[in-house]
């Protein structure tokens, strides 16, 4: 007899949808800002999980796609006068293409070599854009205020960015879920466990890995487009911030690497914790220290993360939390 399975995806969509509606209905802008950031982090963590959690490739400089997407979209909106939504979709294409071009050579590297290569690519991109005048060089680009006028003012533009970020987060989770459930996902996980064996059973590792990499690059690119649209200003230091890249790895590990729910839980928990530490007057000074300590404890003792731990502890949950 088949055990009743909770429909995970519809459930998570409903939860996020309801959550996203609260600040709009109650007119609470600070909660909206907070959720905007959480949805962005969920997108970053979930997409990194596809290449890192499922496939086993630690993409350390994954933020490069967030920055690239932001830059492409910003350029199209500011210089070419494109509409936000068109620019967002258009920005994902070159970002995914770049992922394809660099993915083919660097995914041949294994382990630490791959991780270092992704750091190199992020830093190379950052320093190159620093010198790239069409993108404003080291100063970056900023919107004329009039750009927001076509969306009905800055406030309406902020709300539009918020809706779009919500949809991006939901799409990322849906993609992550679909991949995990698919034959393609099985191929990725086979590569993670043992690439040579995967090859023997008929997986084409090169092809599968590059595909996973391209997918995991497209969503951060769109998140970058939405983030910098709302931000109104973009410069290389914020766009290609290695620290944010590492933060998203931490979220994945905190929540549970290789699970669909893990990055969502991890991103929310991380952001909540950071908010708590920063606003607490006595702890604010030790914010980074405490974050490091917590990370160390998770890495040393709960390496499966929150979701992974729950699944290990209560095996029955495995049917409910993918």
């Amino acid at each position: 007899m088949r055990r009743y399975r909770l429909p995970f995806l519809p459930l998570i969509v409903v939860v996020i949808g309801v959550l996203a509606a609260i600040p709009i209905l109650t007119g609470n802008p600070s909660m909206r800002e907070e959720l905007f950031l959480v949805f962005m982090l969920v997108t970053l963590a979930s997409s990194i999980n596809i290449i890192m959690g499922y496939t086993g490739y630690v993409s350390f400089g994954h933020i490069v796609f967030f920055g690239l997407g932001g830059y492409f979209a910003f350029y199209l909106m500011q210089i070419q006068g494109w509409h936000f939504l068109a620019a967002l979709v258009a920005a994902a294409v070159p970002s995914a293409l770049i992922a394809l071009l660099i993915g083919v050579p660097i995914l041949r590297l294994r382990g630490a070599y791959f991780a270092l290569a992704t750091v190199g690519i992020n830093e190379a991109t950052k320093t190159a854009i620093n010198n790239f005048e069409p993108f404003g060089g080291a100063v970056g680009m900023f919107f004329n205020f009039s750009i927001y006028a076509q969306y009905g003012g800055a406030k309406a533009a902020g709300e539009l960015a918020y809706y779009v970020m919500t949809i991006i987060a939901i799409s990322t989770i849906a993609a992550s879920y679909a991949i995990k459930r698919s034959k393609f996902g099985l191929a990725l996980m086979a590569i993670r466990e043992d690439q040579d064996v995967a090859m023997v059973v008929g997986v084409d590792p090169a092809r599968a890995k590059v595909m996973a990499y391209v997918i995991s690059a497209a969503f951060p690119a769109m998140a970058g487009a939405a983030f910098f649209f709302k931000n109104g200003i973009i410069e290389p230091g914020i766009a290609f911030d290695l620290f944010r890249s590492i933060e998203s790895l931490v979220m994945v590990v905190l929540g549970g690497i290789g699970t669909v729910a893990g990055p969502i839980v991890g991103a929310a928990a991380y952001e909540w914790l950071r908010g708590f530490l920063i606003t607490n007057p006595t702890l604010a000074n030790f914010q980074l220290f405490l974050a490091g300590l917590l990370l160390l404890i998770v890495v040393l003792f709960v390496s499966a993360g929150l979701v992974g731990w729950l699944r290990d502890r209560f095996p029955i949950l495995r049917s409910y939390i993918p």
Partner: protein
Amino acid sequence: MSLDALIPSAIDGLMLGFVYGLAAMGLTLIFGVMRVINLAHGPVIALGMYVVYLLFTVLGVNPYIGIVAALFVGLAFGVAMYFIAVDRVINQPELTTLLATYSVNLMVIGIATSAFTTTPRAVDISLGSVSLGNVTILGTHAVAVVVAIVVAAALYFFLFRTRTGKSIRAVSNNRAAAELMGIDSRRMLALSFGIGTALAMVSGGLLSTLFSFTPLSGSGHEVKSFVIVVLGGLGNPTGALVGGIVLGLLEGISTVFIPVSWVPVLEYVIFILILLLRPSGLLGSRV
């Protein structure tokens, strides 16, 4: 392009290269022995700067004696860090050790920024300078090179001529076989981690006599160390020293021909190309 600018600039780069190389030797030693990329490398370099700075400003200790102190602080710090953060996850995939060392990175930066703030500091020391034609060599630079060479030579003597050093190399080659020969591999791993950290701190101490710094200064040097380590071959200390010199020279020479802001682009492109085309580095990997 005149030769007038090229030679001083190249010599400057060469001298800095020795100091970069020293830090990278620490990073590569740790990777070579235990396959761990130490993401706390940058903050450790910064700690070395502050050890020298504090001894100099508070107790008036000569910075070059302060560097000896930094060596021992680094050794103790590295051994402690190994047992606290690395030992338990030493056999796990690279993500785990990356994050474990990164957590130490966060803790050190957290404490250092709240203790020292991010106001730039400097160790104010001048050893005069020697001029030859249009080449001027600052005393501090010259001493930094000498210290870097002495420390590198000492590391070699230790690794190849002493029993403990040979044990470290044995553990690096084959941990299981080394244990069968009666070597306590855990102790050797801890010691290597300590030595790697000590090298980074000494390098930081030397850098503190050359440039001003903040607790965050280490991260730039950390990324630089990554480039050098890959250039010389991951896990190869000689390679790291050579890689440091190559990078220093490259920085010195390229600034004559291209704008300064393009230099890092060139560095990273070389870094990626070497990873892709010759991942064992210019000199091949392993200790």
